[in-house]
Protein backbone atom coordinates (compact mmCIF):
# COMPACT_ATOMS: atom_id res chain seq x y z
CA UNK A 1 0.00 0.00 0.00
CA UNK A 2 1.25 3.47 -0.69
CA UNK A 3 2.46 5.89 1.90
CA UNK A 4 -0.69 8.01 1.80
CA UNK A 5 -2.87 4.96 2.23
CA UNK A 6 -0.73 3.77 5.12
CA UNK A 7 -0.86 7.13 6.82
CA UNK A 8 -4.58 7.39 6.25
CA UNK A 9 -5.16 3.96 7.69
CA UNK A 10 -2.67 3.56 10.50
CA UNK A 11 -0.91 6.90 10.89
CA UNK A 12 -3.23 7.96 13.64
CA UNK A 13 -2.47 4.89 15.68
CA UNK A 14 1.25 5.50 15.42
CA UNK A 15 0.66 9.03 16.61
CA UNK A 16 -1.12 7.63 19.59
CA UNK A 17 1.68 5.22 20.29
CA UNK A 18 4.01 8.18 20.16
CA UNK A 19 1.90 10.09 22.63
CA UNK A 20 1.77 7.13 25.00
CA UNK A 21 5.53 6.82 24.79
CA UNK A 22 5.92 10.52 25.49
CA UNK A 23 3.69 10.13 28.50
CA UNK A 24 5.48 7.12 29.89
CA UNK A 25 8.84 8.56 29.01
CA UNK A 26 8.02 11.72 30.85
CA UNK A 27 7.03 9.71 33.89
CA UNK A 28 10.27 7.83 33.88
CA UNK A 29 12.73 10.47 32.77
CA UNK A 30 11.55 13.65 34.40
CA UNK A 31 12.52 14.19 37.96
CA UNK A 32 10.13 17.01 38.70
CA UNK A 33 6.89 15.69 40.11
CA UNK A 34 4.79 18.28 38.35
CA UNK A 35 6.23 17.21 35.03
CA UNK A 36 5.35 13.67 35.98
CA UNK A 37 1.80 14.76 36.59
CA UNK A 38 1.71 16.42 33.18
CA UNK A 39 3.08 13.27 31.56
CA UNK A 40 0.34 11.33 33.27
CA UNK A 41 -2.24 13.63 31.68
CA UNK A 42 -0.60 13.15 28.31
CA UNK A 43 -0.83 9.37 28.77
CA UNK A 44 -4.48 9.53 29.65
CA UNK A 45 -5.22 11.88 26.75
CA UNK A 46 -3.50 9.50 24.38
CA UNK A 47 -5.79 6.70 25.43
CA UNK A 48 -8.82 8.94 25.09
CA UNK A 49 -7.70 9.84 21.59
CA UNK A 50 -7.32 6.15 20.82
CA UNK A 51 -10.91 5.44 21.68
CA UNK A 52 -12.18 8.43 19.75
CA UNK A 53 -10.14 7.45 16.78
CA UNK A 54 -11.45 3.92 16.87
CA UNK A 55 -14.95 5.27 16.41
CA UNK A 56 -14.36 6.77 13.00
CA UNK A 57 -15.94 5.42 9.85
CA UNK A 58 -15.25 6.26 6.26
CA UNK A 59 -17.48 9.01 4.85
CA UNK A 60 -19.41 9.32 8.07
CA UNK A 61 -20.34 12.41 10.01
CA UNK A 62 -20.49 13.37 13.65
CA UNK A 63 -22.96 11.35 15.70
CA UNK A 64 -25.59 14.08 15.87
CA UNK A 65 -28.80 13.30 14.05
CA UNK A 66 -28.90 15.40 10.90
CA UNK A 67 -32.38 15.85 9.56
CA UNK A 68 -30.98 16.54 6.09
CA UNK A 69 -29.68 12.98 5.79
CA UNK A 70 -33.09 11.47 5.89
CA UNK A 71 -33.73 8.20 7.72
CA UNK A 72 -31.08 7.19 10.24
CA UNK A 73 -28.58 4.75 8.81
CA UNK A 74 -25.76 3.63 11.11
CA UNK A 75 -23.01 3.84 8.49
CA UNK A 76 -23.62 7.56 8.03
CA UNK A 77 -22.72 8.40 11.59
CA UNK A 78 -19.51 7.53 13.39
CA UNK A 79 -19.84 5.28 16.42
CA UNK A 80 -21.10 7.36 19.34
CA UNK A 81 -20.37 4.82 22.06
CA UNK A 82 -16.62 5.41 22.43
CA UNK A 83 -17.33 9.11 22.54
CA UNK A 84 -19.66 8.71 25.46
CA UNK A 85 -17.21 6.43 27.21
CA UNK A 86 -14.52 9.00 26.75
CA UNK A 87 -16.65 11.71 28.25
CA UNK A 88 -16.47 9.70 31.42
CA UNK A 89 -12.78 9.03 30.94
CA UNK A 90 -12.10 12.74 30.51
CA UNK A 91 -13.89 13.43 33.76
CA UNK A 92 -11.79 10.75 35.44
CA UNK A 93 -8.65 12.27 33.96
CA UNK A 94 -9.59 15.72 35.21
CA UNK A 95 -10.34 14.35 38.66
CA UNK A 96 -7.02 12.54 38.71
CA UNK A 97 -5.19 15.68 37.69
CA UNK A 98 -7.01 17.58 40.39
CA UNK A 99 -6.04 15.10 43.07
CA UNK A 100 -2.49 15.00 41.75
CA UNK A 101 -2.13 18.76 41.87
CA UNK A 102 -3.65 18.92 45.34
CA UNK A 103 -1.17 16.32 46.51
CA UNK A 104 1.69 18.21 44.92
CA UNK A 105 0.60 21.39 46.63
CA UNK A 106 0.65 19.54 49.93
CA UNK A 107 4.08 18.09 49.17
CA UNK A 108 5.42 21.50 48.26
CA UNK A 109 3.99 23.06 51.37
CA UNK A 110 5.61 20.43 53.57
CA UNK A 111 8.94 19.90 51.87
CA UNK A 112 9.49 23.00 49.77
CA UNK A 113 10.50 21.20 46.60
CA UNK A 114 9.07 19.06 43.86
CA UNK A 115 12.34 17.74 42.50
CA UNK A 116 12.67 14.04 43.20
CA UNK A 117 16.28 14.04 44.36
CA UNK A 118 15.86 16.89 46.81
CA UNK A 119 12.54 15.53 47.95
CA UNK A 120 14.01 12.20 48.89
CA UNK A 121 16.75 14.03 50.79
CA UNK A 122 14.29 16.13 52.73
CA UNK A 123 12.09 13.18 53.46
CA UNK A 124 14.82 11.31 55.23
Amino acid sequence: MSLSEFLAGYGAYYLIIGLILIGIGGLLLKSNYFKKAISLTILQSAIILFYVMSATKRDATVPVIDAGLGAIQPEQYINPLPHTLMLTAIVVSVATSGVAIALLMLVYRRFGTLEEGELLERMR
Partner: protein
Amino acid sequence: MIGEHFPVLIPVSLLVGAVVSVPLGLWRGSLSRLVALLATGFSVVAAGVGLRHVLRAGEMRYSLGGWPPPIGIEYVADPLALFVVLVVTGVGFAVTVYSKRSLERESPQNHVPFNAVALLFLAGLSGMVMTGDLFNLYVFLEIASLAAYALVAAGEKRAPVAAFRYLVLGTVGASCYLLGVGFLYLATGSLNMADVRAILPLLPHYRLPFIALCLMVIGLGLKMALFPLHVWLPDAYTYASSVGSAYLAPVGTKVAAYALMRVWFGVFGPVAYALPIGAMLVVASVAGILVGSIMAMAQNDLKRMLAYSSVAQVGYIGLGIGLASPLGFIGAVLHILNHAVMKATLFLVSGALAYRFGTTSILPMDDRLRRAMPWTSAAFAVAALSMIGLPPTAGFFSKWYLALACLKAESWPLVAVIALSSLLNAVYFFRVLERMYLRKASAEERIPGPPASNPGEAPPSMLIPILILGLGVLLIGLANAWIVEKVIKLAIPSGL
Protein backbone atom coordinates in the same frame (compact mmCIF):
# COMPACT_ATOMS: atom_id res chain seq x y z
CA MET B 1 -34.95 -4.97 50.89
CA ILE B 2 -34.58 -7.43 48.11
CA GLY B 3 -36.54 -5.52 45.56
CA GLU B 4 -35.65 -5.47 41.92
CA HIS B 5 -33.15 -2.68 42.59
CA PHE B 6 -31.05 -4.71 44.97
CA PRO B 7 -27.84 -5.07 42.90
CA VAL B 8 -27.23 -1.32 42.94
CA LEU B 9 -28.36 -0.84 46.51
CA ILE B 10 -24.98 -1.12 48.16
CA PRO B 11 -22.88 1.14 45.92
CA VAL B 12 -25.67 3.70 45.77
CA SER B 13 -26.20 3.78 49.51
CA LEU B 14 -22.51 4.26 50.14
CA LEU B 15 -22.32 6.99 47.51
CA VAL B 16 -25.31 8.74 49.01
CA GLY B 17 -23.70 8.42 52.38
CA ALA B 18 -20.51 9.98 51.08
CA VAL B 19 -22.33 12.92 49.55
CA VAL B 20 -24.62 13.51 52.51
CA SER B 21 -21.95 13.23 55.15
CA VAL B 22 -20.08 16.33 53.95
CA PRO B 23 -22.71 19.03 54.49
CA LEU B 24 -23.98 17.31 57.61
CA GLY B 25 -20.45 17.06 58.89
CA LEU B 26 -19.75 20.70 58.23
CA TRP B 27 -22.83 21.56 60.20
CA ARG B 28 -22.21 19.24 63.12
CA GLY B 29 -18.95 17.23 63.15
CA SER B 30 -20.23 14.11 64.83
CA LEU B 31 -22.97 13.71 62.24
CA SER B 32 -20.52 12.75 59.52
CA ARG B 33 -19.44 9.79 61.55
CA LEU B 34 -23.02 8.85 62.23
CA VAL B 35 -23.77 8.89 58.52
CA ALA B 36 -20.71 6.75 57.86
CA LEU B 37 -21.81 4.22 60.46
CA LEU B 38 -25.32 4.12 59.07
CA ALA B 39 -24.20 3.74 55.50
CA THR B 40 -21.67 0.99 56.16
CA GLY B 41 -23.93 -0.76 58.64
CA PHE B 42 -26.78 -0.75 56.18
CA SER B 43 -24.47 -2.09 53.49
CA VAL B 44 -23.31 -5.00 55.63
CA VAL B 45 -26.85 -5.99 56.42
CA ALA B 46 -27.87 -5.63 52.79
CA ALA B 47 -24.90 -7.72 51.67
CA GLY B 48 -25.69 -10.46 54.16
CA VAL B 49 -29.37 -10.58 53.31
CA GLY B 50 -28.57 -10.43 49.63
CA LEU B 51 -26.12 -13.29 49.84
CA ARG B 52 -28.68 -15.49 51.53
CA HIS B 53 -31.29 -14.56 48.96
CA VAL B 54 -29.03 -15.14 46.01
CA LEU B 55 -27.86 -18.50 47.31
CA ARG B 56 -31.43 -19.65 47.39
CA ALA B 57 -32.98 -17.88 44.43
CA GLY B 58 -30.14 -17.53 41.96
CA GLU B 59 -28.38 -14.50 40.67
CA MET B 60 -30.03 -11.17 40.05
CA ARG B 61 -29.38 -8.88 37.13
CA TYR B 62 -30.21 -5.23 37.00
CA SER B 63 -30.02 -2.78 34.13
CA LEU B 64 -29.14 0.77 35.03
CA GLY B 65 -31.70 3.22 33.77
CA GLY B 66 -33.80 0.45 32.31
CA TRP B 67 -31.52 0.16 29.28
CA PRO B 68 -31.18 -3.53 28.54
CA PRO B 69 -27.77 -5.11 28.08
CA PRO B 70 -25.62 -5.25 26.06
CA ILE B 71 -26.35 -1.61 25.28
CA GLY B 72 -27.00 -0.57 28.84
CA ILE B 73 -24.88 -1.03 31.94
CA GLU B 74 -25.73 -4.14 33.86
CA TYR B 75 -25.23 -4.97 37.53
CA VAL B 76 -24.96 -8.61 38.51
CA ALA B 77 -25.57 -9.95 42.01
CA ASP B 78 -24.26 -13.49 41.98
CA PRO B 79 -22.90 -15.48 44.95
CA LEU B 80 -19.26 -14.57 44.36
CA ALA B 81 -20.00 -10.86 44.02
CA LEU B 82 -22.11 -10.76 47.13
CA PHE B 83 -19.54 -12.78 49.04
CA VAL B 84 -16.81 -10.28 48.21
CA VAL B 85 -19.13 -7.33 48.89
CA LEU B 86 -19.95 -8.83 52.27
CA VAL B 87 -16.25 -9.00 53.07
CA VAL B 88 -15.67 -5.42 51.89
CA THR B 89 -18.60 -3.90 53.73
CA GLY B 90 -18.02 -6.01 56.82
CA VAL B 91 -14.43 -4.89 57.16
CA GLY B 92 -15.46 -1.36 56.24
CA PHE B 93 -18.05 -1.29 58.99
CA ALA B 94 -15.60 -2.63 61.55
CA VAL B 95 -13.01 -0.03 60.63
CA THR B 96 -15.62 2.75 60.67
CA VAL B 97 -16.58 1.80 64.21
CA TYR B 98 -12.90 1.78 65.09
CA SER B 99 -12.12 5.07 63.41
CA LYS B 100 -13.53 7.50 65.90
CA ARG B 101 -10.80 7.47 68.52
CA SER B 102 -8.00 6.83 66.10
CA LEU B 103 -8.92 9.78 63.92
CA GLU B 104 -9.27 11.98 66.97
CA ARG B 105 -5.68 11.22 67.82
CA GLU B 106 -4.09 11.22 64.40
CA SER B 107 -5.91 13.70 62.20
CA PRO B 108 -8.47 15.57 64.28
CA GLN B 109 -9.16 18.40 61.88
CA ASN B 110 -9.76 16.11 58.94
CA HIS B 111 -12.29 13.69 60.21
CA VAL B 112 -15.31 14.97 58.31
CA PRO B 113 -13.75 14.80 54.84
CA PHE B 114 -11.97 11.61 55.89
CA ASN B 115 -15.25 9.88 56.58
CA ALA B 116 -16.66 11.05 53.27
CA VAL B 117 -13.61 9.86 51.36
CA ALA B 118 -13.69 6.53 53.16
CA LEU B 119 -17.32 6.09 52.15
CA LEU B 120 -16.39 6.98 48.57
CA PHE B 121 -13.68 4.35 48.71
CA LEU B 122 -16.07 1.68 49.90
CA ALA B 123 -18.64 2.81 47.34
CA GLY B 124 -16.07 2.49 44.58
CA LEU B 125 -15.04 -0.95 45.76
CA SER B 126 -18.57 -2.27 46.03
CA GLY B 127 -19.40 -0.82 42.64
CA MET B 128 -16.40 -2.60 41.19
CA VAL B 129 -17.64 -5.84 42.66
CA MET B 130 -21.28 -5.61 41.63
CA THR B 131 -20.89 -4.33 38.12
CA GLY B 132 -21.26 -6.47 35.05
CA ASP B 133 -19.89 -3.98 32.59
CA LEU B 134 -16.22 -3.61 31.76
CA PHE B 135 -16.16 0.16 31.40
CA ASN B 136 -18.25 0.63 34.51
CA LEU B 137 -15.58 -1.38 36.25
CA TYR B 138 -13.04 1.20 35.13
CA VAL B 139 -15.18 4.04 36.41
CA PHE B 140 -15.60 2.54 39.86
CA LEU B 141 -11.98 1.47 39.88
CA GLU B 142 -10.98 5.06 39.47
CA ILE B 143 -13.49 6.25 42.06
CA ALA B 144 -12.01 3.82 44.55
CA SER B 145 -8.46 4.68 43.57
CA LEU B 146 -8.88 8.43 43.84
CA ALA B 147 -10.45 7.98 47.22
CA ALA B 148 -7.57 5.69 48.15
CA TYR B 149 -5.01 8.33 47.17
CA ALA B 150 -6.77 10.76 49.44
CA LEU B 151 -6.92 8.25 52.28
CA VAL B 152 -3.18 7.71 52.00
CA ALA B 153 -2.43 11.42 51.84
CA ALA B 154 -4.26 12.10 55.10
CA GLY B 155 -1.49 10.44 57.02
CA GLU B 156 1.78 11.52 58.46
CA LYS B 157 4.22 14.02 57.07
CA ARG B 158 5.59 11.97 54.19
CA ALA B 159 2.21 10.64 53.19
CA PRO B 160 1.49 13.01 50.28
CA VAL B 161 4.65 11.87 48.51
CA ALA B 162 3.65 8.25 48.93
CA ALA B 163 0.15 9.17 47.80
CA PHE B 164 1.48 10.88 44.70
CA ARG B 165 3.59 7.89 43.80
CA TYR B 166 0.57 5.69 44.36
CA LEU B 167 -1.42 8.03 42.14
CA VAL B 168 1.07 7.87 39.30
CA LEU B 169 1.33 4.11 39.33
CA GLY B 170 -2.35 3.64 39.93
CA THR B 171 -3.29 5.87 37.03
CA VAL B 172 -0.86 4.10 34.73
CA GLY B 173 -2.49 0.86 35.75
CA ALA B 174 -5.98 2.14 35.23
CA SER B 175 -4.96 3.53 31.84
CA CYS B 176 -3.59 0.13 30.88
CA TYR B 177 -6.87 -1.40 31.91
CA LEU B 178 -8.80 1.19 29.93
CA LEU B 179 -6.71 0.51 26.85
CA GLY B 180 -7.36 -3.17 27.29
CA VAL B 181 -11.09 -2.54 27.48
CA GLY B 182 -10.81 -0.49 24.31
CA PHE B 183 -9.10 -3.30 22.45
CA LEU B 184 -11.69 -5.75 23.67
CA TYR B 185 -14.44 -3.43 22.50
CA LEU B 186 -12.82 -3.15 19.12
CA ALA B 187 -12.61 -6.91 18.87
CA THR B 188 -16.05 -7.85 20.15
CA GLY B 189 -18.19 -4.74 19.88
CA SER B 190 -19.55 -5.07 23.39
CA LEU B 191 -18.66 -3.93 26.88
CA ASN B 192 -20.95 -6.23 28.81
CA MET B 193 -19.01 -9.00 30.56
CA ALA B 194 -21.42 -11.79 29.81
CA ASP B 195 -21.85 -10.64 26.25
CA VAL B 196 -18.12 -10.50 25.56
CA ARG B 197 -17.79 -13.97 27.00
CA ALA B 198 -20.33 -15.23 24.53
CA ILE B 199 -18.75 -13.44 21.57
CA LEU B 200 -15.10 -14.27 22.19
CA PRO B 201 -15.12 -17.93 21.11
CA LEU B 202 -16.69 -16.90 17.81
CA LEU B 203 -13.81 -14.69 16.81
CA PRO B 204 -11.55 -15.86 13.95
CA HIS B 205 -8.33 -15.15 15.76
CA TYR B 206 -7.30 -14.02 19.23
CA ARG B 207 -4.57 -11.48 18.60
CA LEU B 208 -6.58 -8.49 19.76
CA PRO B 209 -8.19 -10.16 22.78
CA PHE B 210 -4.79 -11.52 23.79
CA ILE B 211 -3.33 -8.03 23.89
CA ALA B 212 -6.42 -6.81 25.66
CA LEU B 213 -6.02 -9.52 28.31
CA CYS B 214 -2.36 -8.68 28.78
CA LEU B 215 -3.15 -5.01 29.29
CA MET B 216 -5.97 -5.74 31.68
CA VAL B 217 -3.83 -8.13 33.68
CA ILE B 218 -1.08 -5.52 33.96
CA GLY B 219 -3.54 -2.83 34.90
CA LEU B 220 -5.34 -4.84 37.53
CA GLY B 221 -2.07 -6.36 38.66
CA LEU B 222 -0.80 -2.89 39.42
CA LYS B 223 -3.87 -2.20 41.47
CA MET B 224 -3.61 -5.42 43.41
CA ALA B 225 0.11 -5.05 44.00
CA LEU B 226 1.20 -8.14 42.15
CA PHE B 227 4.96 -8.43 42.04
CA PRO B 228 6.74 -6.55 40.45
CA LEU B 229 4.01 -3.95 40.26
CA HIS B 230 3.78 -3.63 44.02
CA VAL B 231 6.28 -0.83 44.57
CA TRP B 232 3.66 1.72 45.56
CA LEU B 233 2.32 -0.39 48.41
CA PRO B 234 4.90 -0.31 51.21
CA ASP B 235 5.19 3.46 51.38
CA ALA B 236 1.48 4.00 50.92
CA TYR B 237 0.44 1.66 53.74
CA THR B 238 3.20 2.82 56.06
CA TYR B 239 2.66 6.55 55.81
CA ALA B 240 -1.11 6.46 55.76
CA SER B 241 -2.87 6.99 59.03
CA SER B 242 -3.85 3.96 61.05
CA VAL B 243 -7.44 4.13 59.92
CA GLY B 244 -6.38 4.85 56.36
CA SER B 245 -4.24 1.77 56.11
CA ALA B 246 -6.94 -0.19 57.94
CA TYR B 247 -9.39 0.75 55.19
CA LEU B 248 -6.92 0.22 52.35
CA ALA B 249 -5.00 -2.89 53.24
CA PRO B 250 -7.68 -5.49 53.87
CA VAL B 251 -9.92 -4.72 50.93
CA GLY B 252 -8.26 -2.43 48.40
CA THR B 253 -6.03 -4.94 46.71
CA LYS B 254 -8.53 -7.76 47.18
CA VAL B 255 -11.22 -6.13 45.08
CA ALA B 256 -8.69 -5.56 42.31
CA ALA B 257 -7.84 -9.24 42.57
CA TYR B 258 -11.55 -10.02 42.37
CA ALA B 259 -11.79 -7.86 39.26
CA LEU B 260 -8.90 -9.80 37.78
CA MET B 261 -10.77 -13.00 38.58
CA ARG B 262 -13.88 -11.70 36.87
CA VAL B 263 -11.96 -10.74 33.77
CA TRP B 264 -9.85 -13.86 33.74
CA PHE B 265 -12.49 -16.46 34.53
CA GLY B 266 -15.71 -14.69 33.75
CA VAL B 267 -15.00 -12.74 30.60
CA PHE B 268 -12.20 -14.62 28.92
CA GLY B 269 -12.79 -18.05 30.34
CA PRO B 270 -11.39 -20.91 28.28
CA VAL B 271 -9.73 -18.45 25.92
CA ALA B 272 -7.54 -17.30 28.79
CA TYR B 273 -6.54 -20.74 29.96
CA ALA B 274 -5.09 -21.51 26.57
CA LEU B 275 -2.78 -18.52 26.72
CA PRO B 276 0.54 -18.49 28.58
CA ILE B 277 -0.57 -15.61 30.78
CA GLY B 278 -1.52 -18.03 33.53
CA ALA B 279 2.05 -19.21 33.80
CA MET B 280 3.25 -15.60 33.98
CA LEU B 281 0.78 -14.91 36.77
CA VAL B 282 2.05 -17.91 38.68
CA VAL B 283 5.67 -16.84 38.30
CA ALA B 284 4.91 -13.29 39.34
CA SER B 285 2.89 -14.51 42.33
CA VAL B 286 5.64 -16.84 43.49
CA ALA B 287 8.17 -14.03 43.23
CA GLY B 288 5.80 -11.81 45.15
CA ILE B 289 5.33 -14.38 47.90
CA LEU B 290 9.05 -14.84 48.37
CA VAL B 291 10.11 -11.22 47.99
CA GLY B 292 7.28 -9.98 50.21
CA SER B 293 8.10 -12.42 53.00
CA ILE B 294 11.82 -11.76 52.83
CA MET B 295 11.42 -7.99 52.80
CA ALA B 296 8.97 -8.22 55.70
CA MET B 297 11.62 -9.90 57.80
CA ALA B 298 13.92 -6.93 57.37
CA GLN B 299 11.52 -4.24 58.54
CA ASN B 300 11.65 -2.37 61.80
CA ASP B 301 8.30 -0.71 61.53
CA LEU B 302 5.21 -2.81 62.18
CA LYS B 303 3.11 -1.21 59.45
CA ARG B 304 5.81 -1.57 56.83
CA MET B 305 6.25 -5.20 57.83
CA LEU B 306 2.52 -5.76 57.43
CA ALA B 307 2.62 -3.96 54.08
CA TYR B 308 5.26 -6.30 52.69
CA SER B 309 3.36 -9.18 54.19
CA SER B 310 0.34 -8.02 52.17
CA VAL B 311 2.42 -8.20 49.01
CA ALA B 312 3.20 -11.80 49.85
CA GLN B 313 -0.43 -12.62 50.62
CA VAL B 314 -1.64 -11.13 47.36
CA GLY B 315 0.81 -13.53 45.76
CA TYR B 316 -1.25 -16.41 47.16
CA ILE B 317 -4.36 -15.06 45.48
CA GLY B 318 -2.49 -14.53 42.24
CA LEU B 319 -1.22 -18.09 42.47
CA GLY B 320 -4.75 -19.38 42.86
CA ILE B 321 -5.89 -17.37 39.85
CA GLY B 322 -2.96 -18.34 37.68
CA LEU B 323 -3.41 -22.05 38.31
CA ALA B 324 -6.83 -21.81 36.67
CA SER B 325 -8.25 -24.87 38.40
CA PRO B 326 -11.31 -25.28 40.66
CA LEU B 327 -9.14 -25.79 43.73
CA GLY B 328 -7.03 -22.77 42.84
CA PHE B 329 -10.17 -20.70 42.47
CA ILE B 330 -11.49 -21.87 45.83
CA GLY B 331 -8.15 -21.15 47.46
CA ALA B 332 -7.96 -17.68 45.94
CA VAL B 333 -11.50 -16.68 46.90
CA LEU B 334 -11.19 -18.10 50.39
CA HIS B 335 -7.93 -16.25 50.80
CA ILE B 336 -9.66 -13.02 49.83
CA LEU B 337 -11.90 -13.51 52.85
CA ASN B 338 -9.19 -14.82 55.15
CA HIS B 339 -6.63 -12.20 54.33
CA ALA B 340 -9.13 -9.37 54.60
CA VAL B 341 -10.07 -10.44 58.12
CA MET B 342 -6.51 -11.23 59.21
CA LYS B 343 -4.98 -8.05 57.82
CA ALA B 344 -7.78 -5.94 59.19
CA THR B 345 -7.10 -7.36 62.65
CA LEU B 346 -3.38 -6.75 62.32
CA PHE B 347 -3.70 -3.18 61.08
CA LEU B 348 -6.32 -2.34 63.68
CA VAL B 349 -4.01 -3.66 66.36
CA SER B 350 -1.12 -1.58 65.04
CA GLY B 351 -3.44 1.42 65.10
CA ALA B 352 -4.34 0.65 68.71
CA LEU B 353 -0.65 0.45 69.56
CA ALA B 354 -0.07 3.78 67.89
CA TYR B 355 -3.01 5.21 69.83
CA ARG B 356 -1.72 4.12 73.21
CA PHE B 357 2.03 4.19 72.72
CA GLY B 358 2.47 6.69 69.94
CA THR B 359 4.62 4.56 67.68
CA THR B 360 4.48 1.49 65.51
CA SER B 361 8.19 0.78 65.54
CA ILE B 362 9.06 -2.80 66.44
CA LEU B 363 12.41 -2.05 68.04
CA PRO B 364 11.22 -0.57 71.32
CA MET B 365 8.42 -3.08 71.75
CA ASP B 366 8.49 -5.07 74.92
CA ASP B 367 6.08 -6.79 77.22
CA ARG B 368 4.64 -3.53 78.47
CA LEU B 369 2.46 -3.93 75.39
CA ARG B 370 1.02 -7.17 76.59
CA ARG B 371 0.60 -6.04 80.14
CA ALA B 372 -1.13 -2.83 79.15
CA MET B 373 -3.20 -4.31 76.33
CA PRO B 374 -3.74 -8.02 76.92
CA TRP B 375 -6.78 -8.44 74.70
CA THR B 376 -5.26 -6.52 71.82
CA SER B 377 -2.11 -8.60 72.04
CA ALA B 378 -4.17 -11.78 72.10
CA ALA B 379 -6.00 -10.71 68.94
CA PHE B 380 -2.66 -9.94 67.31
CA ALA B 381 -1.36 -13.36 68.32
CA VAL B 382 -4.37 -15.15 66.83
CA ALA B 383 -4.08 -13.20 63.58
CA ALA B 384 -0.33 -13.82 63.46
CA LEU B 385 -0.80 -17.57 63.98
CA SER B 386 -3.34 -17.51 61.20
CA MET B 387 -0.93 -15.74 58.85
CA ILE B 388 1.68 -18.37 59.68
CA GLY B 389 -0.87 -21.01 58.81
CA LEU B 390 -1.51 -22.88 62.02
CA PRO B 391 -4.72 -24.85 62.27
CA PRO B 392 -7.49 -24.41 63.12
CA THR B 393 -7.24 -20.74 62.17
CA ALA B 394 -8.33 -19.49 58.78
CA GLY B 395 -4.89 -19.11 57.23
CA PHE B 396 -4.19 -22.83 57.44
CA PHE B 397 -7.12 -23.64 55.19
CA SER B 398 -6.18 -21.15 52.48
CA LYS B 399 -2.84 -22.91 52.32
CA TRP B 400 -4.55 -26.29 52.32
CA TYR B 401 -6.59 -25.51 49.21
CA LEU B 402 -3.70 -23.83 47.45
CA ALA B 403 -1.39 -26.77 48.26
CA LEU B 404 -3.99 -29.16 46.88
CA ALA B 405 -4.28 -27.02 43.76
CA CYS B 406 -0.51 -26.98 43.26
CA LEU B 407 -0.32 -30.72 43.78
CA LYS B 408 -3.07 -31.27 41.26
CA ALA B 409 -1.10 -29.14 38.84
CA GLU B 410 1.84 -31.43 39.66
CA SER B 411 4.06 -28.53 40.42
CA TRP B 412 6.48 -29.30 43.24
CA PRO B 413 8.26 -25.94 43.33
CA LEU B 414 4.93 -24.24 44.01
CA VAL B 415 4.18 -26.51 46.96
CA ALA B 416 7.66 -25.86 48.31
CA VAL B 417 7.07 -22.11 47.97
CA ILE B 418 3.83 -22.31 49.96
CA ALA B 419 5.57 -24.33 52.67
CA LEU B 420 8.57 -22.02 52.74
CA SER B 421 6.42 -18.91 52.97
CA SER B 422 4.67 -20.26 56.07
CA LEU B 423 8.02 -20.58 57.75
CA LEU B 424 9.15 -17.12 56.63
CA ASN B 425 5.90 -15.68 57.99
CA ALA B 426 6.66 -17.44 61.27
CA VAL B 427 10.03 -15.70 61.44
CA TYR B 428 8.80 -12.15 61.21
CA PHE B 429 5.63 -12.61 63.19
CA PHE B 430 7.34 -14.36 66.04
CA ARG B 431 9.85 -11.54 66.11
CA VAL B 432 7.01 -9.23 67.07
CA LEU B 433 5.25 -11.77 69.30
CA GLU B 434 8.42 -12.48 71.24
CA ARG B 435 8.91 -8.81 71.91
CA MET B 436 5.29 -8.33 72.83
CA TYR B 437 5.13 -11.20 75.24
CA LEU B 438 8.61 -11.98 76.41
CA ARG B 439 10.95 -9.04 76.22
CA LYS B 440 11.37 -7.50 79.61
CA ALA B 441 10.89 -3.76 79.81
CA SER B 442 14.06 -2.21 81.11
CA ALA B 443 13.89 0.95 83.16
CA GLU B 444 16.01 3.13 80.90
CA GLU B 445 14.34 2.22 77.66
CA ARG B 446 11.42 4.42 76.89
CA ILE B 447 9.01 4.06 74.07
CA PRO B 448 9.29 7.24 72.00
CA GLY B 449 6.36 9.44 71.27
CA PRO B 450 3.89 11.31 73.45
CA PRO B 451 3.82 9.76 76.88
CA ALA B 452 0.52 8.00 77.13
CA SER B 453 -1.24 9.30 80.16
CA ASN B 454 -3.23 6.16 80.50
CA PRO B 455 -1.46 3.24 78.83
CA GLY B 456 -4.26 0.85 79.36
CA GLU B 457 -6.19 -1.33 76.99
CA ALA B 458 -7.49 0.23 73.80
CA PRO B 459 -10.79 2.08 74.19
CA PRO B 460 -13.91 -0.04 73.61
CA SER B 461 -14.77 1.47 70.24
CA MET B 462 -11.37 0.30 69.03
CA LEU B 463 -11.18 -2.90 71.01
CA ILE B 464 -14.49 -4.41 70.01
CA PRO B 465 -13.81 -4.44 66.24
CA ILE B 466 -10.36 -5.88 66.94
CA LEU B 467 -11.80 -8.67 69.04
CA ILE B 468 -14.60 -9.43 66.63
CA LEU B 469 -12.21 -9.65 63.71
CA GLY B 470 -9.75 -11.72 65.75
CA LEU B 471 -12.49 -14.12 66.75
CA GLY B 472 -13.61 -14.15 63.14
CA VAL B 473 -10.21 -15.47 62.10
CA LEU B 474 -10.75 -18.51 64.30
CA LEU B 475 -14.40 -19.02 63.39
CA ILE B 476 -13.83 -18.70 59.67
CA GLY B 477 -11.16 -21.35 59.95
CA LEU B 478 -13.50 -23.75 61.69
CA ALA B 479 -16.34 -22.98 59.31
CA ASN B 480 -14.29 -22.93 56.13
CA ALA B 481 -15.79 -26.12 54.74
CA TRP B 482 -19.26 -24.64 55.13
CA ILE B 483 -18.18 -21.44 53.38
CA VAL B 484 -16.57 -23.35 50.55
CA GLU B 485 -19.46 -25.75 50.06
CA LYS B 486 -22.27 -23.27 50.38
CA VAL B 487 -20.86 -20.23 48.66
CA ILE B 488 -17.62 -20.60 46.82
CA LYS B 489 -18.28 -23.82 45.03
CA LEU B 490 -21.39 -22.29 43.51
CA ALA B 491 -19.26 -19.55 42.07
CA ILE B 492 -16.71 -21.70 40.30
CA PRO B 493 -16.87 -20.58 36.70
CA SER B 494 -17.77 -23.16 34.14
CA GLY B 495 -15.10 -24.57 31.96
CA LEU B 496 -12.50 -24.93 34.70
